[in-house]
């Protein structure tokens, strides 16, 4: 797959504050989640990709072309900033059409695109109200609208879901997935891990300006062989189930939950364990309430890599 966004040992700092150091990355079409603690460099990276900042070392290019001051590139990029900052005295409609006109679209097309964008984020009813009077959720949605109104190929979203209620979040996640289906490239940064997991399994972990890991979450999970996989089984008689595994060499550690109903197993070979677990449960006739692997989500991978 050709890479849409590519950086080669990209470094950026302002004053003595480190933003990014030596980041080489390739981002293909589809949704890529950008993840990292506060001040890890996510916003810095996004500002470099959208040409708001000049790299100190290295290059950042979109579709092969360097980004800094390359305005012809910006008509194919949509950016949704993190800051809750607007031209407060204008209405949603004026804000959207004003920015759309900067692309040089003829007036008729500006109106069409604005209407379509407003429908997508369902703000059509509030288009004539001043942004000053918008609620936090509506402000977030109008900000998203201005990022996609000109139908860009590459969409950069910095914390797009902050301030939205669960229903708003679901709509936006669905929307981002629709854009993936249209073959666009979407880079999303978010702090709330479940949101990123709901959108994509392809993530880039950034920490203290460096790339910790990049790729499919599960692939990364399996990659980290050093760290054994945890599986928790909740049932009426966990000790009966455990008894069947004592002799199994691939089991590293077993522990029992304080509630006396859960068995937590750490093993290198998840595959073997799961198949044997199924037989054990059926033979022992033990009612199983729940089987879960607590560390197969982003939070665990993150904690592990960040060295918790």
């Amino acid at each position: 797959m050709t890479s849409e966004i590519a950086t080669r040992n990209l470094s950026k700092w302002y004053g003595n504050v480190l933003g990014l150091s030596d980041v080489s990355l390739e981002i293909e079409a589809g949704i890529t989640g950008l993840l990292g603690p506060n001040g890890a460099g996510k916003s810095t990276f996004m500002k470099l990709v959208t040409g708001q900042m000049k790299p100190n070392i290295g290059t950042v290019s979109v579709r092969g072309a360097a980004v800094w001051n390359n305005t012809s590139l910006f008509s194919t990029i949509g950016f949704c900033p993190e800051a809750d900052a607007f031209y407060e005295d204008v209405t949603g409609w004026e804000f959207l059409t004003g920015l759309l006109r900067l692309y040089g679209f003829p007036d008729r097309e500006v109106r069409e695109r604005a209407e379509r964008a407003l429908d997508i984020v369902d703000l059509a009813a509030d288009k004539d109200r001043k942004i000053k009077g918008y609620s936090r959720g509506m402000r977030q949605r109008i900000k998203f609208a201005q990022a996609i109104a000109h139908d860009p190929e590459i969409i950069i979203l910095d914390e797009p879901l902050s301030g939205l209620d669960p229903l708003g979040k679901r709509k936006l996640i669905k929307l981002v997935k629709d854009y993936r289906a249209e073959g666009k490239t979407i880079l999303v940064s978010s702090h709330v891990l479940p949101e990123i997991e709901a959108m994509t399994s392809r993530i880039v972990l950034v920490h203290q300006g460096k790339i910790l890991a990049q790729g499919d979450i599960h692939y990364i999970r399996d990659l980290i062989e050093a760290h054994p996989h945890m599986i928790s089984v909740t049932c009426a008689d966990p000790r009966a189930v455990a008894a069947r595994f004592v002799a199994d060499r691939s089991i590293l550690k077993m522990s029992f939950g304080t509630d006396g109903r859960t068995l937590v197993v750490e093993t290198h070979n998840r595959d073997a364990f799961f198949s044997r677990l199924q037989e054990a449960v059926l033979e022992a006739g033990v009612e199983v309430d729940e089987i879960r692997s607590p560390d197969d989500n982003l939070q665990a991978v993150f904690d592990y890599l960040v060295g918790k």
Partner: protein
Amino acid sequence: MSIEVEGLCFSYGSITALDGVSLRLGEGAIGLLGPNGAGKSTFLRILLGFLTPEKGRGRVLGYEIGREQALIRRSVGYMPEDDCFIAGMDAVTFTSYFGELSGMPRQEAMKRAHEVLFYVGLGEARYRLLDQYSAGMKQRLKMAQALVHDPQLLFLDEPTSNLDPQGRKEVLDLIEDIVSKKDMTVLVSSHILADIETLCSSVVILSKGRVAAEGRMEDLRAIHYSLYEVKVKGDGTGFKRELEAMGCRVDETEDRVIKVYMPPEGGRMDIFRAASRAGDQIRFFTKSQTSLEDLFAQVAGEE
């Protein structure tokens, strides 16, 4: 009983924000939920006395809203939703400043400010200017100023928004630790349902200015039919065919979670038998309680 309100009504001009809310909230951590514009922030602001309700009255910690507002504010810590700080100040001065304004003597406020800043994880950055604080650090700073005068009641409006995973964990641990000491009530309004589920023992769901649901977490979440969620290795077509053959209704979400609606007579072991018959390996299995999200959608009615 920390908060009692009767028939609260309030509207911003033509938009009614609260339409007859009556609640009696006890100790521990209480979750306040509701879609945008359901009236959560308005409710908090009325309790704090920023807004006077058109109808209805209420008592916070036994003090009457409106008349004994100063007494309420002495023992309440408020963490607002939107960004607020004072430019040109560092974190220690900022926190001790608001401690003093709450009535703490200056030296005590300074001592307590350092302590509280460590609680919220701003220990190292406490001498830096607030202008250089990131959104997440400002979020923790708001928490610090709400805790500095050691209130009996904490109002937290979106405490974990724009916090990174580590930050969120620290703030959640801090709130859990506070609540566990049983001598401080916390009212948490948040959109991140996972947080409410970990923190709160009871929940109030507001929708369109009215109380849509209220009660302890367990009671609200118990559901009647048995719904199981299963993930198998591979695509699981064989497994699904076996289940349908046994009369279960099956559908699959986009991230490959198979939802199995088991008829009353069937047992959960049938699912395991179906899997082994189909030769598929179950890797995730749970009896689904209505997750707060479904409850939220169901109650708020927009699903």
